[in-house]
């Protein structure tokens, strides 16, 4: 049954399309993570869980009430943003006020977020069972040139691309977008030049969480979802930030393209089971070789 690796595969537009779709999802997720991590320096390993929640909102809306995922996407973004604002206003802000708590949280942030992510996953598993779920929406197949692609994929790609471009414009031209970039570069300096860091932080959480939830609804249109689908997305997003650079939006998009290409082509050329090996391989290599990508300052022990 094994397909012989074929050089012509590399040139196949089919694979290119698959890589583009994946890259678009990744870019949305990574931009959100980049924002939150950049502004707060907290490694949110529960970021992928927001993708999962977005997916369930679309699934729930469609399966229960027949709501188009396009409409659900709006709700999902709102829900994600609301969650971000709530989390920031109730917990994060307070943590950042107490230096003692902050030291403890920064130090152990990973364990805390890992715990949170386990909780969210299992709460969803209790609510919806651990089964894989999916729905069919616009699953007709289009043929464009030699590429055969499902309508829903094309739609998801289009929406994600528009969202990415909108983000790029926002960061480039909007006042708060520029403020966000300033905070990511230098929190203290940003405060000094008169940026209301607290207000921008709220927006960062809202935007970052909203983007992840949006990505979730798009993923759910094209693939099965489950309560445990989030973590691989978190890992991919981390890889992308490391590759593309902290606070670097364009870098995130390029990183997303790179990782998606490695995954899709790797899986096609070697074997599908190789996909996770590749992602984790890039992840480890990136953390070891380019830790400054995640930082801006050195994190080596010495």
């Amino acid at each position, binding site marked *: 049954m094994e397909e012989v690796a074929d050089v012509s595969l590399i040139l196949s537009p089919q694979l290119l399309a698959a890589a583009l779709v994946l890259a678009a999802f990744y870019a949305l997720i990574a931009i959100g993570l980049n924002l939150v991590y950049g502004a707060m320096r907290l490694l949110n390993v529960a970021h992928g869980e927001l993708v999962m929640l977005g997916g369930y909102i679309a699934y729930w809306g469609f399966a229960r009430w027949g709501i188009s995922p396009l409409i659900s996407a709006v709700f999902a973004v709102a829900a994600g943003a609301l969650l971000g604002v709530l989390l920031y206003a109730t917990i994060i802000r307070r943590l950042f006020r107490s230096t003692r708590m902050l030291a403890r949280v920064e130090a152990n942030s990973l364990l805390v977020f890992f*715990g949170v992510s386990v909780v969210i996953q299992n709460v969803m*598993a209790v609510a919806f069972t651990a089964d894989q779920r999916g729905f069919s929406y616009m699953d007709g197949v289009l043929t464009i040139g030699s590429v055969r692609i499902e309508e829903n994929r094309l739609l998801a790609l289009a929406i994600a691309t528009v969202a990415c471009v909108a983000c790029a414009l926002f960061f480039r031209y909007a006042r708060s977008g520029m403020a966000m970039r300033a905070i990511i570069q230098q929190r203290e300096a940003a405060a000094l030049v008169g940026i209301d860091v607290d207000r921008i932080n709220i927006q960062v959480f809202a935007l970052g969480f909203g983007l992840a939830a949006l990505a979730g609804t798009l993923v759910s249109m094209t693939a099965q979802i489950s309560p445990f689908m989030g973590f691989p997305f978190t890992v991919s997003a981390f890889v992308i930030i490391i590759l593309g650079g902290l606070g670097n939006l364009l870098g995130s998009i390029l990183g997303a393209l790179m990782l998606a290409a490695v995954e899709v082509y790797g899986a096609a050329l070697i074997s599908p089971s190789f996909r996770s090996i590749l992602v984790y391989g890039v992840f480890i290599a990136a953390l*070891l070789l380019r830790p400054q990508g995640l930082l801006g300052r050195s994190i080596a*022990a010495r």
Partner: protein
Amino acid sequence: MTRQGWQTGLVLVAATALAAALPLALGTYSLGVALDLMMWIALAESWAMFSGLSGYVSLGHAVFYGVGAYVTVLLWQVLPLWFSVPLGGLTAAALALLLGWPCLRVRGPYFVILTLGISEFIKYAVISTEAALGRNGRLLIGTPSLTVLFEAMLALAVLSMAVLQIVRSARLGAGLLAIREDEVAAEAVGINATAVKLSAFAMSAFIPGMVGGLMILRSTYFEPMQAFSPTTSFTIVTVAILGGSDTVAGPLLGSLFLVLLSELLWTRAPEVYMIILGVLLVAFVLFVPEGLVGRAGRFLRAPKPGPSSRDHRAVVIEP
């Protein structure tokens, strides 16, 4: 040794002897639970020996458990078990040396996520290897009896406690604590941080490797997704932090609590069980980082409302 030391020692020997006699008193089911308890003790004490003392929190100890299991399975009916299980432990220790070399240069949350990533990487590598070999899981027939496995696991649990106690009072433990507090200052007083961290990391992988070997003999079925499950790492960390990760009593208490919880919930509501573990991990890291034992100790030691700003027995990872 002090008088109190002797007394504690006697109590421990008596407790071990009693535990060793458990198979005479317990039925198969209860003995299985006791085996699980010994397993968590062995794993969490080994973890605490490195991560609790050094502050380098490993969220990847499942990989050592899994590798130990894999070695034992690969050598099943090739080599005798008394040889292959310890060999699994040695392989895990060797792997720790290999991984520790690059990883232990990275600190704080980055080390945590790196260990997790590496553990997952190796899991998928083993899955691929098994798939390439055309193996869909491996069945072991004719494994040792539950009693034998229990006694072996008991030995590992006791060994892991002894190792932690010895390391704590030895030069190595002092070096690890210094590294946890301030690595630059540690080097300035003569501590070769790289060597200290590496040797402790390898030591803390050895027993989990053997535990993996024993547990695969208990389940009689090897499947990499299961053997390398990150849930194992997560549970180890939670158990150790729950009890308090730099005393021998801490992980012991944490394991007791875990086994109790899992008896109540695991078969009936595994998700609820995981939710409770997650909540406990978050709550303890944030609010009781010194663990139950540390907290109890503070109460017993007549709380002094001094200017102490940090709980100085807690696992604190410097960013």
